[in-house]
C-alpha cells in the first residue's frame, strides 16, 4: 500500500521542503574554491552556461560563464540560485524504507535494491511484465534518458514506460513530425537577430525562458516587430508591438484566421508551396470561412488587431515564430502547433537566415530527453517503437533479438488510469513528481494509494515519493557527467562538479545495479557516462535525431554541437532545411488542414469562468528543487489568483481576498491578485505548489488524441469569494503546503 506512512507534517519535518539560504558571508571556501566547473543550469531548456564553485566536494557558489555563446554569462534568478540545491539540508543521503506510522527508516543499499527487485518479480510473475510501470523525466541527461529507456525495455521488460515530457512538448513533437518529419527547433536563436517579425505564441518568455529575452530585444534593436499571443499581458507582452490576448483554448481559431488572410491577400510564397510542400489546397480550404468577424467572436481579439498581425506576418521578408506550452497544453495541442507551422510554410520562411520556427522546450533536457527512448512509443534516435526497421536497428545495438523489445506502452496519464483499473500494480519513478505536475491530482493521488509497490529514485523526497515503499537516494544534475540538448538542438556537456553526498549514488549506478539484479547485467556493462553516450550515438545513428558524429571531445572543442550530426567529420546542423530536403518520406514539408474545434471543457452557466495555468519566474516545474531554495520561495511565496478588476467586481472580490475556485474535479483557495493584465473572462493560477495550494487539483485530465498531453491551459471554473484575507501562516508555508 502506498498511502502516506506518516502525516504530511511529520514527513515535511523530516524531509522538507525546507528553505535553504547561504550563510550571510557566503559558504566557506567560496573565495578559494578547489575547482571551478563549467556546466549548465538545470532549470529550463535554455541550458545557460554557468560555473559552479566547489570546495571540499560541496558546491559553494557560482560565477557567470561569459564565454558560453548562448547566454554569455546572463542568468535568471533560478540560475543564480541553482547552486543552493547542492549542500542542502533536505538532500537524501541514503536509501529509505517506509515505516508505517513514523515515515521512513534508513536502510542499506542491498536491502533497498533487493526489496525493489523482489517486488518487481512478484508483481510481474502474478500479473505479467507490463503490470510494473516506470515514469521518468526530462531533466535527466541524454545518457540517463537513454539508459532509462533501455532499462525499462530490457531489464524491467515492461512496455509501460513514459515520462514527464508528456506534460511538456509532446504536442510540438507530434506536430513537427507531421509537418517536417523531424522534431527539433528548425533554427538557432541567432536567426532571431534580423527577423523582421517575431511572433511568440503562448510562451511567457520573460518568466519561463528569461535569457531568451536578450535575443528578442537584440532583434528589436535591429528593427524587428514583436507580436505576442497570450491571454495575459506578460512582461514580454508589455512592450510588444502587438499583443493579441487570445481567449484560452481558441488558439487554432486565431492561426486559422491568420492563414485565411494570407490566402485572401496572396501573402504567400507560391514557389515554395509548389516545390517543397504538400497539402496546401486542403489546408487553405479548411480556413476559408475563418474571416475576421468569426475570428473576433471565437478568439476574443479585436478584428483589427488580427488583421494587423496578418499584415505584419504576411508582408515580412524574414520572420521567426516561436511557441511553447501556451498552445501545446491542449486537447488540440497538435492542431495548434500545426496551425502555426502552416503560417510558416505558407510564407516559405524557413531554412534560410533569419527565417525561423521552433517550439521553446521547457524542461532542462526537454529536447534531448524526448529523443532517446524513455517515451512509451519511442526508441533512441527518435525512432518509432512500432517500426520494424527501427526496432531491428536498436535490437542490433542492444544485442537482443528484436522481439525482446516490448512494443508501445501507455502514456504518462494513461499509466495513472491503468493503475486505477488495476492493470499496473507496481511503479518505479525517477525525476518526476506527478502529484504536483499532473492534472486532476486528487485522482493521481488515489492511484498512488492503490499501488502494491512503489520505488522512487530521487535526491529530495518530493511530494509523490512520500508515497513510496522504497526510496533510492539518487543524484543531482551537478553530481554526474553527461550531455543535454538545449532548446536550440545544441548538445552540451554537463560536468560532474561533486560526487553524491553520504551514501547517495548516481542515478546511473542505481539503474545499472537494478539491471544487474534483474538479470540483465550483461546489457548494462557501462563504466561511465561517456560509454553510455557512445552506445547512444550508435543507437541514434540513421534516426532522425542522429547523434553519431557527436563526441564529448567535439562538444568540448566547439561549446556544443547541433544535431543531426551523422558523421564524425560533420560540423552539426544549426539551421535545418537549408537544402529544402525535409525529413518526411516524400521529402516535402506537409501542410496539415486544421479545422477549429472547442477545447475539451468550455464555460457554461454552472462553471462560467475560464481557468488557465502557468509558471512564475522564480519556480521550476513541480518545485521539488526550487521550493527548497529560500530566495526563490520568498520572491513569489504562494500561488495567487490573477483576476481582472471587472470580473473581481462582479463577484465582490477585493485585492488579497481568498477565493475558492471550484472545477468539476476539485476546489482550492487562493488569494486574489486583481490586475488589468489578464482577460476579463479568464483567471490564472501558477502550478508549482503542492497539496492544498496545487492548481492541478482543478485542471482537467482530458488529453490531446494524438500527443496525449493534458489540457492544463483551459478548463471551466466557479469562483466563491470568501470575503476575508488569507491567514499569514498559510502564505508563509505554501511552499510546503499539505
Amino acid at each position, binding site marked *: 500500500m502506498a498511502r502516506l506512512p506518516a502525516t504530511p507534517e511529520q514527513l515535511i519535518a523530516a524531509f522538507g521542503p525546507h528553505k535553504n*539560504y*547561504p550563510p*550571510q*558571508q*557566503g559558504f566557506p571556501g*567560496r*573565495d578559494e574554491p578547489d575547482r571551478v566547473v563549467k556546466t549548465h543550469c538545470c532549470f529550463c531548456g535554455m541550458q545557460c552556461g554557468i560555473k559552479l564553485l566547489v570546495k571540499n566536494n560541496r558546491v559553494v*557558489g*557560482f560565477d*557567470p560563464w*561569459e564565454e558560453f555563446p548562448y*547566454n554569455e*554569462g*546572463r*542568468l*535568471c*534568478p533560478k*540560475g*543564480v*540560485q541553482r547552486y543552493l540545491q547542492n549542500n542542502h539540508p533536505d538532500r537524501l543521503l541514503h536509501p529509505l524504507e517506509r515505516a508505517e506510522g513514523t515515515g521512513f527508516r534508513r536502510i542499506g543499499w542491498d536491502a533497498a535494491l533487493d526489496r525493489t527487485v523482489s517486488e518487481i518479480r512478484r508483481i510481474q510473475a502474478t500479473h505479467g511484465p507490463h503490470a510494473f510501470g516506470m515514469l521518468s523525466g526530462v531533466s535527466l541527461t541524454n545518457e540517463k534518458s537513454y539508459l532509462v529507456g533501455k532499462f525499462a525495455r530490457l531489464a524491467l521488460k515492461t512496455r509501460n514506460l513514459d515520462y514527464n515530457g508528456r506534460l511538456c512538448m509532446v504536442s510540438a513533437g507530434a506536430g513537427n513530425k507531421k509537418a517536417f518529419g523531424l522534431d527539433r527547433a528548425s533554427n538557432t536563436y541567432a536567426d532571431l537577430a534580423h527577423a523582421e517579425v517575431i511572433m511568440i505564441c503562448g510562451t511567457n518568455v*520573460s*518568466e519561463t525562458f*528569461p*535569457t531568451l*529575452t*536578450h535575443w528578442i*530585444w*537584440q532583434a528589436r*534593436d535591429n528593427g524587428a516587430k514583436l507580436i505576442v499571443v497570450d491571454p495575459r*499581458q*506578460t*512582461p*514580454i507582452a*508589455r*512592450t510588444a508591438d502587438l499583443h493579441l490576448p487570445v481567449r484560452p483554448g481558441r488558439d487554432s481559431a486565431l492561426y486559422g484566421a491568420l492563414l485565411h488572410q494570407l490566402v485572401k491577400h496572396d501573402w504567400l510564397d507560391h514557389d515554395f508551396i509548389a516545390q517543397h510542400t504538400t497539402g496546401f489546397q486542403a489546408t487553405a480550404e479548411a480556413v476559408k470561412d475563418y474571416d475576421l468577424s468569426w475570428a473576433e467572436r471565437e478568439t476574443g481579439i479585436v478584428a483589427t488587431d488580427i488583421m494587423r498581425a496578418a499584415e505584419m506576418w504576411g508582408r515580412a521578408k524574414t520572420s521567426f515564430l516561436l511557441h511553447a506550452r501556451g498552445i501545446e497544453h491542449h486537447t488540440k495541442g497538435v492542431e495548434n502547433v500545426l496551425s502555426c507551422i502552416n503560417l510558416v510554410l505558407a510564407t516559405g520562411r524557413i531554412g534560410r537566415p533569419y527565417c525561423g520556427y521552433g517550439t521553446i522546450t521547457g524542461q532542462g533536457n526537454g529536447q534531448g530527453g524526448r529523443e532517446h527512448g524513455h517515451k512509451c512509443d519511442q526508441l533512441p534516435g527518435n525512432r518509432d517503437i512500432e517500426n520494424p526497421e527501427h526496432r531491428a536497428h536498436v535490437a542490433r545495438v542492444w544485442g537482443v533479438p528484436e522481439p525482446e523489445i516490448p512494443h508501445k506502452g501507455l502514456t504518462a496519464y494513461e499509466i495513472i488510469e491503468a493503475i486505477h483499473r488495476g492493470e499496473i500494480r507496481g511503479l518505479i519513478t525517477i525525476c518526476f513528481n506527478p502529484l504536483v505536475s499532473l492534472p486532476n491530482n486528487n485522482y493521481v493521488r488515489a492511484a498512488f494509494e492503490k499501488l502494491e509497490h512503489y520505488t522512487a529514485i530521487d535526491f529530495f523526497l518530493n511530494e509523490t515519493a512520500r508515497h513510496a515503499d522504497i526510496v533510492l537516494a539518487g543524484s543531482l544534475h551537478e553530481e554526474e557527467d553527461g550531455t543535454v540538448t538545449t532548446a536550440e538542438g545544441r548538445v552540451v556537456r554537463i560536468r560532474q562538479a561533486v560526487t553524491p553526498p553520504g551514501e547517495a549514488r548516481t542515478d546511473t549506478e542505481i539503474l545499472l545495479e537494478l539491471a544487474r539484479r534483474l538479470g540483465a547485467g550483461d546489457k548494462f556493462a557501462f563504466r561511465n557516462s561517456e560509454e553510455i553516450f557512445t552506445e547512444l550515438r550508435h543507437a541514434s545513428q540513421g534516426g532522425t535525431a542522429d547523434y553519431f558524429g557527436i563526441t564529448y571531445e567535439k562538444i568540448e572543442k566547439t561549446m556544443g554541437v547541433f544535431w543531426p550530426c551523422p558523421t564524425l567529420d560533420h560540423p552539426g546542423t544549426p539551421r535545418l532545411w537549408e537544402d529544402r530536403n525535409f525529413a518526411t518520406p516524400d521529402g516535402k514539408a506537409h501542410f496539415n488542414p486544421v479545422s477549429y474545434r472547442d477545447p475539451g471543457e468550455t464555460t457554461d452557466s454552472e462553471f462560467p469562468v475560464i481557468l488557465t495555468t502557468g509558471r512564475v*519566474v*522564480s519556480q521550476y516545474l513541480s518545485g521539488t528543487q526550487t521550493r527548497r531554495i529560500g*530566495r526563490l520561495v520568498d*520572491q513569489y511565496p504562494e500561488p495567487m489568483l490573477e483576476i481582472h*478588476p471587472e470580473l473581481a467586481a462582479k463577484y465582490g472580490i477585493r*485585492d488579497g481576498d481568498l477565493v475558492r475556485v471550484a472545477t468539476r474535479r476539485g476546489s482550492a483557495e487562493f488569494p486574489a*491578485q*486583481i*490586475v*488589468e*493584465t489578464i482577460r476579463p473572462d479568464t483567471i490564472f493560477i501558477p502550478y508549482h505548489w503542492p497539496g492544498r495550494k496545487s492548481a492541478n487539483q482543478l485542471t482537467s485530465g482530458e488529453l490531446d488524441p494524438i500527443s496525449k498531453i493534458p489540457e492544463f491551459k483551459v478548463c471551466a471554473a466557479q469562483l466563491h469569494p470568501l470575503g476575508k484575507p488569507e491567514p499569514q501562516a498559510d502564505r508563509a508555508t505554501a511552499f510546503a503546503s499539505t
Partner: protein
Amino acid sequence: MQNTQIRTDEEFFVDPQRCIGCRACEMACAECETNGQTSMIHVDYVDRAVSPQTSVQVCMHCEDPACARVCPADAITKDEFGIVHTANTARCISCANCVLACPFGVPKKIETTQIMMKCNMCYDRTSAGKRPMCATVCPSGALWFGKREKMAQMRPHSTPVNTFFFGAQTVRTKVNIMMPAGSTALRVD
C-alpha cells in the same frame, strides 16, 4: 587607487523598459561577500494592478554625490574613477542623511548593523577587469556594462542619458539611463 584594472572606457547603462522583473540582479548582488546577502540593487513594480512593468534602481554614481555632501562623518567618498563608495564602516554614524538626500533613493540604512550600504559598482569585480555582477547576469539587457560605442551600435533606437532635472536641481551621473533616440536629459519632476 592602487592595484586596479578598472576599465575606464566602459560604462554602466540601465534600460528600464527592458526590465522583466525577474530579480536575477538582486539575487546575484546579494551573493557578493561584502554585501552579506543584502542586495544593493532594487527591482519594484511600478503599479502591478495595471501593468507587469518593473523598474530597476542601482546607484547612479553622481558626479557631485548628494550622499557624500550631506554625510557629517565624511564616510562616503567618490574615487578618481567616479565610483561613489559605500559608507566607510568605521566612520558611518548611521544618521541616514544620505538616505534622505539621494535623489534616486539608493542608499539603505541597514538596521541590524546600523550602517549605510549602497552599490560600489562591484568594486571587487570591476577593479579586476570584470563587469559588475548585476549587469553580467541581467537576462534582458536592462542592465549592461561596456563601451559607449558598442552600446550605440547595438541599440540605435536609444540614447544614453546621464543628466537629470529634479526641479531646479541638475544631477549628472556616471551611470546612464537609456532613453528614446535623441533625448538629452530626463526631467523627473
